[in-house]
């Protein structure tokens, strides 16, 4: 009898364990998320370097504490009514969105369920957080990466925004509010 035949059951069991571990740790995290590209290949770097734009020009806090978020078409068409450069991507953008006045359906990297409440005002003005602490180097990036979208729930797959853990850890360390309705609606 070969070794395999002698310990057939145990070997197969262990093989199953190993395959599951590999699938669970390597394949599943990749398969779990859909990578959805942005509709327009926007480059933050070009806009900060060449156009001299600052973060607050597009992403700012309103007086009532609401966050302006991703800018709407009227912000882009202020400059891009005519082509500002020579790229084919910009031409595609102008023809497809600026001219017909269509809003770009940007993918939100931090997309949360409706019952989640996040206040940029509290985190910027009171906690004095820098944008990079949650959003990474997005503001200096050359391309917007694809958004990771959970295939089952449909919400954000970015490590930082997948669940409450990152938020709760920081809140606990700094002694910030930790009750349910502080962050939920």
């Amino acid at each position, binding site marked *: 009898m070969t070794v395999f035949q002698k310990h057939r059951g145990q070997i197969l069991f262990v093989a199953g364990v190993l395959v599951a571990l590999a699938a669970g740790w390597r394949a599943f995290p990749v398969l779990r998320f859909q990578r959805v590209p942005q509709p327009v290949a926007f480059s933050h770097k070009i806009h900060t370097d060449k156009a001299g734009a600052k973060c607050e020009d597009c992403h700012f*806090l*309103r*007086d*009532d*504490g*609401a966050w302006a978020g991703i800018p709407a078409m009227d912000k882009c068409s202020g400059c891009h009514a005519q082509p500002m450069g020579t790229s084919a991507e910009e031409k595609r953008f102008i023809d497809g969105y600026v001219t017909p006045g269509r809003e770009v359906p940007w993918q939100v990297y931090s997309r949360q*369920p*409706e*019952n989640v*409440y996040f*206040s940029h*005002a*509290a985190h910027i*003005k*009171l*906690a004095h957080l820098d944008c990079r602490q949650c959003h990474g180097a997005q503001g200096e990036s050359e391309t917007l990466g694809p958004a990771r979208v959970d295939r089952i729930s449909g919400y954000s797959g970015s490590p930082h925004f997948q669940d409450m853990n990152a938020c709760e850890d920081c809140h606990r360390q*700094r*002694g*910030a*509010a930790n*009750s*349910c*309705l*502080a962050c*939920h*609606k």
Partner: protein
Amino acid sequence: MTAITPKPARYGMAIDLDRCTGCGACMIACAVENNVPPARPEATPRTGITWMRVYQISNGASFPDTRAAFIPILCQQCGKDTPCAAVCPQEAVETDPATGIVDQMPQRCLGCRYCMAACPYHARYFNWWDPQWPAGMEKTLNPDVATRMRGVVEKCNFCHGRLHTARARAAAGGRRELHPGEYVPACVEACPAAAIVFGDLDDPASEVARLARDGQSFRLLEKLGTEPKIYYRTARPWVRQAAAQQRPASEPPERRLRAGLPAPQGSGQKEPAHA
């Protein structure tokens, strides 16, 4: 607690029953603010959702000496041994130490309704059906409050969406503390008779703290020891006596009706159409 959070408040209300005319503006403003859907035809007074609900009581006298009073009942935000928080198997209910508000998380609730049995004030409501709005009316939903699906319990949370908005506005101005009047629940704002006063019970300068200490103020079912934060005021002894009963002294006749009969012909009065 570090300096990152503001001084804890203990929000409460003082409701003047001598001013309340039973108009129901508070109920309506509450439902609009909190995305409560119009009812299904099957809903009854027991299965509907009324986070704020105005009850009618009478002085027990007969014609022509009968007089009515109206009592708006909402979650009493029990401050001690909160019954609903104690029984929830999901820990979906907790008291927020920063505001004293009893938080109900519908998204965490599994719908066992143990809390509804535990609440002595019947201030908790269950979503028996998925919410449905007439076509187009779902565009009037308030973005500051999440909608709930069927199978979960919900209740008043002192318009937490408005607290978020007030805090965000204060934060935009660099402030942690809220000015009095910056955060006002919908029912307080809507009351045409200004019968509801809202504020921080722990702030000795606030109107609500002054009213709560006043001799005319009382709370419902005080002997249960739940330390509710809603104070009711009246100068009429019969109102006070009726409100102290476990059930209102004379159950308003309308509450015994079941829905179902069509409106009389030619009455000019019609049940408004809804989906």
